[in-house]
């Protein structure tokens, strides 16, 4: 793999990891606002005494509760009005109540849902709109950080908030062309984020300052990222390409999001179960799309091959007709003239040789027998032509004669002739067959032709091998048969191969 490819794959993997994280956090935020309650994050000497520890992740910190303050009153979660703490220190009285934060937490439910949607959209956009992934992740992190931060759940809230501060700047820095600058920016924001995590987990009094910087970085960074990747290209007129999401993506994310909310709100399933189901559903989207793409590509390739085959056949027919209509007729008339001149005997003979060569070329392009006499005669001709030293090719055909009104359509005759021709070629060239039997029953409405050889049989394994090796005879036979809606079977055993093609009007 080239370095470029490795870089590409690393970037792709990072993007996938990022949107998965955002999705997880969006899900956690949603379940937090639905079933969680705010965490106070306080330890006190019970029932009276001093505040021992306060976590910046809990809401008590935001209410100004700090270690060392004296507890005035404390009522537990189960008392009326919920958890409540009143403390006092030199600066006055501090009151922290659960109910207020619970309401605040629940009022952020739109943000939580939007975060979930952003993560989902990011996931389905990996394949189609990669430029969207960074901004979507940043938006999702910023949105999820608010409810998670309010709830105070230590690990998830820290992750979401740190990510919301770090990611936009990191993605923006990634666009810098100079590696030195990129490293400088990454180091700066990385160091700051680590410091922020440190002061948060150690409940350092400096946390408030750090949190102010982080929140600003998250808000401005996300704004700048959206401006740079979506707004600016849109203003430049590149918008349609970048901005418009696929309708199917939006719809599927909406469906998945809606379904997950129903599961959480109304069916009261556990957030974890919903999360697993929903992520699986969302991850399935890009996977099925990928499979669909491959299928689409295969179908297109087949269609192209079919069109190419038709074009080539039409061209061959035209050339063969042209050779017959013009040079061959001219030659025969010139030869007539020369025949009257005894001294030109040699020239006439040479022109006869030229005529023979032209006839052979025209016959190679498209056997005239097929058009003039029909499929039965053409299969017979095929046998005549393929018979060589040590190789026995016979044809036994029943056919309606040369009258076009009694024959199958021209395209059917041609397609079946080509299938038989390919089968005979395969038998002689690849299977070392010594005897080939062509049997045919041709009428206006049905055609059955089988080609049976005694060579090395084209078993399923060999067929696959041949396909892999790029020997396209089989594929071409299949296409020919498909083009006229005929059945083709290729059966190989140790004693040979039988190719059978059946058509019915």
């Amino acid at each position, binding site marked *: 793999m080239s370095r470029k490819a490795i870089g590409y794959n690393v970037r792709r993997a990072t993007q996938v990891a990022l949107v998965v994280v955002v999705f997880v956090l969006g899900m956690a935020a949603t379940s937090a606002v639905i079933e969680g309650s705010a965490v106070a994050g306080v330890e006190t000497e019970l029932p009276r005494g001093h505040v021992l520890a306060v976590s910046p992740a809990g809401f008590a910190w935001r209410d100004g509760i700090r270690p060392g303050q004296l507890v005035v009153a404390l009522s537990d979660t189960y008392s009326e009005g919920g958890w409540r703490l009143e403390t006092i220190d030199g600066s006055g009285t501090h009151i922290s109540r659960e109910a207020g934060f619970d309401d605040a937490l629940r009022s952020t439910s739109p943000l939580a849902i939007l975060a979930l949607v952003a993560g989902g959209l990011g996931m389905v956009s990996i394949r189609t709109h990669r430029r969207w992934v960074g901004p979507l992740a940043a938006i999702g992190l910023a949105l999820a950080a608010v409810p998670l931060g309010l709830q105070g759940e230590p690990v998830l809230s820290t992750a979401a908030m740190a990510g919301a501060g770090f990611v936009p700047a990191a993605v923006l820095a990634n666009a810098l062309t100079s590696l030195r600058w990129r490293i400088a920016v990454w180091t700066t924001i990385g160091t700051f984020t680590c410091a922020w995590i440190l002061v948060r987990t150690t409940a350092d009094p400096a946390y408030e300052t750090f949190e102010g910087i982080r929140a600003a970085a998250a808000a401005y960074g996300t704004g700048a990222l959206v401006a740079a990747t979506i707004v600016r290209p849109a203003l430049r007129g590149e918008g349609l390409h970048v901005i418009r999401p696929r309708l199917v993506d939006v719809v599927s994310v909406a469906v998945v999001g809606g379904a997950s909310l129903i599961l959480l709100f109304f069916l009261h399933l556990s957030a974890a179960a919903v999360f697993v189901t929903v992520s699986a559903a969302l991850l399935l989207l890009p996977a099925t799309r990928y499979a669909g793409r491959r299928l689409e590509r295969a179908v297109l390739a087949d269609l192209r091959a079919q069109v190419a085959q038709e074009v080539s056949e039409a061209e061959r027919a035209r050339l063969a007709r042209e050779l*017959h*209509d013009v040079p*061959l*007729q*001219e*030659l*025969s*008339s*010139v*030869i*007539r*003239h020369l*025949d*009257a001149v005894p001294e030109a005997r040699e020239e*006439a003979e040479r*022109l*006869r040789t030229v*005529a023979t060569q032209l*006839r052979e070329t*025209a*016959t190679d392009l498209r056997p*005239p*027998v097929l058009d*003039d*006499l029909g499929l*039965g*005669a*053409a299969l*017979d*001709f095929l*046998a*005549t032509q393929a018979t060589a030293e040590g190789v026995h090719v*016979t*044809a*036994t*055909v*029943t*056919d*309606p*004669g*040369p*009258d*076009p009104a009694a024959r199958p359509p021209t395209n059917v005759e041609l397609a079946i002739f080509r299938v038989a021709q390919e089968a005979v070629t395969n038998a002689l060239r690849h299977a070392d067959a010594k005897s080939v*039997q*062509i*049997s*045919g*029953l041709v*009428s206006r409405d049905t055609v*059955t032709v*089988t*080609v*049976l050889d005694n060579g090395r049989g084209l078993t399923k394994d060999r067929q696959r091998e041949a396909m892999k090796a790029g020997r396209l005879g089989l594929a071409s036979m299949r296409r020919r048969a498909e083009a006229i809606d005929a059945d083709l*079977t290729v*059966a190989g055993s140790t004693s040979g191969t*039988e190719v*059978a093609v*059946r058509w019915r009007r």
Partner: protein
Amino acid sequence: MIRVGIIDDHPLVIGGLDRALSSVKDIRVVARGGTVAEARAILARADVDVLLLDIRLPDGNGLVLLSSTANERRCPVLVLSSFETPQYVSTALRFGARGFMLKTAPLEDLVGAIRAVAAGGSAFTAEQLLDANTRSIRLSFRERQIVQLIVAGRSNEEIAGAIGSSRKTVEAHLTHLYGRLGIASRVELALRAERDGWLDLGPSGDAR
């Protein structure tokens, strides 16, 4: 004097033939045309001794014309073709042509063939006949039916009853088949049909 008709859709070919044949003392070109319709008209004329007939014509096919007029009174036909493979020759033979030649054949061969046909003979060369007869087996549906019934051991009368035609017709078909395939008797026909698998369509082929 041999009166000759020419059917070919290429004026150059007709012109060349016309000029070449008029240089021959005992031959006179009395009719010319370039379509199946014109060919049909000439075939019915009693004052034409030999018709030189092309295969590919703008409104159809000379060999198909021969097959559709096989039972009518018509003047002898010498097929003149741009291509010559055993299948063409055997088809011409089957539909009652008296000879088959390439358009580029030397004039003396052509004149010889015209004289032979005009004299009531056949102008197929020994090589053509050999090629046309020793190749693969091609049957019409009617012939296939008859072969099937012969292999099943039926008599001509039974066959005639089975296929809904007269004993005479069956005999005519058989005579024709014997001649074409170089076979002397119905036993030989049955044996060869069995041995060479004329009625088979391969192991998985549907025989009907």
